[in-house]
């Protein structure tokens, strides 16, 4: 089992080496990057907005219920919701969801290209399939995931505020004050750093699984599932490591 893991890890780093080779045509790579940004990033905005609004709302409800004490001002509920969203919910939960949506898209589309010989067609033309197909995807994820997480933070905070107000769980003015009280910009940096690392994990691991598919449609499905599992493990693991390094 360990030797299998190490072989896989070695293969993953060799794959990254192939991905990072010099492109045959920068112009075509940029065109592909724009296409991937639209496909992987822009199309995820509605999902992220929807999830974040409700995530913020639920967080406010849970925190308000647990801190329902006349001696605790509603401002502290606002602070707790803000820190929860910025530090954990927006970067980690949204990344886990994107691992499912974007990661499985990447692995299944590359897997399909592999089994239908489209990658061989690229290779015959003298184009490095690893680089041409994967580098723009990694670039698109690295650029757009932090943007999605910023969206998620705003939507989560909005959802939290609206839920607190509509359900009369908090005093809206006091709650809102909590959003701005003792705000630490470093937490945004921490959140975006985590997101960037997760973006690389999602795009590269899913691409590696898709790129190495052998067989047919069943194997493409299997690779996609395995990729989501591997990405989720890696995200949770790196979430711990980065938190330990950046917040201790």
């Amino acid at each position: 089992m360990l030797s299998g893991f190490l072989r896989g890890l070695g293969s993953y780093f060799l794959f990254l080496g192939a991905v990072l080779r010099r492109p045959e045509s920068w112009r075509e790579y940029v065109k592909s990057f724009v296409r991937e940004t639209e496909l992987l990033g822009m199309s995820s905005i509605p999902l992220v907005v929807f999830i974040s609004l409700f995530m913020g709302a639920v967080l406010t409800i849970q925190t308000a219920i647990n801190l329902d004490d006349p001696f605790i001002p509603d401002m502290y509920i606002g602070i707790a919701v803000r820190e929860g969203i910025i530090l954990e919910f927006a970067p980690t939960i949204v990344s886990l969801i994107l691992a499912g949506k974007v990661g499985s898209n990447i692995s299944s589309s590359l897997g399909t290209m592999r089994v239908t010989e489209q990658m061989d067609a690229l290779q015959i033309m003298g184009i490095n399939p690893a680089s041409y197909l994967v580098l723009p995807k990694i670039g698109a994820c690295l650029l757009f995931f932090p943007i999605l997480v910023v969206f998620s933070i705003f939507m989560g905070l909005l959802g939290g505020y609206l839920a607190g107000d509509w359900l009369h769980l908090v005093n809206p003015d006091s709650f809102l004050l909590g959003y701005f009280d003792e705000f630490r910009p470093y937490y945004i940096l921490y959140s975006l750093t985590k997101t960037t690392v997760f973006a690389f994990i999602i795009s590269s691991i899913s691409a590696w699984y898709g790129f190495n598919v052998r067989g047919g449609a069943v194997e493409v499905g299997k690779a996609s599932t395995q990729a989501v599992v591997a990405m989720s493990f890696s995200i949770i693991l790196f979430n711990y490591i980065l938190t330990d390094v950046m917040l201790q």
Partner: protein
Amino acid sequence: MIEVRGIKKTFGDQAVLKGIDMQLAPGQCNLIIGSSGSGKTVLLKSIVGLITPDEGQVLLDGRDWTAMKEQDRKELRQEMGMVFQASALFTSLSVEENVRFPLDFFSQLSAAEKKERVAFCLDRVRIPESALKKNPAELSGGMQKRVAIARAIVLNPKYLFCDEPNSGLDPETSIVIDQLIQEITREFGMTTVVNTHDMNSVLEIGDHVVLLRHGYKVWEGTGPDILKSDDQEVVDYVFRSALFKRVRSAMNK
């Protein structure tokens, strides 16, 4: 001219190619035939460099392709076109974009010149203009093969490789594809290598036919020769079919 010298390939403990030598002349359709598992796909993939052979050489007009560095190979690849069994058209691109794809990467042509070249190639394979903006999935199997041929010839290659181009096509469409491959080969003077198990293709376009069996080359000749051959390997491969038994007996009468 493509020269194959002593190509051997083993996967695990299974020897798939056991030392193949052959010469494939330009301006001809060179067909590699053989039953499933005979090694013809591995041989074709070894020739085009998708598989690295364990031993042997592939010479493309005297240039040792097997010994080349990746960068030199990349340049030489622009002299190659390939039609895959499942067409391998890029599903995220339209028909026109698929054919233009190699030009976008490797030519210095202006947009107008590219458009003209794409139109010429698609017209040459008889794809109507109405199909240009369509996605490959919207086309029939035969049309997809023709678009794949157009993409393969768009850079005006010296070598054209076709892996089972008639796979999944009806007999009528297969003949159209065969004739198209032959016309293009003659017209552009390419060295064409076709991997097939379709005996009709052998008779239709087989200028030079190589029969593989269990990783060995067991016979070579022309398409018409194969019907007259008494070679046991040819008899075993070709004349198991009732149709070809009848053809042979009709010829002998």
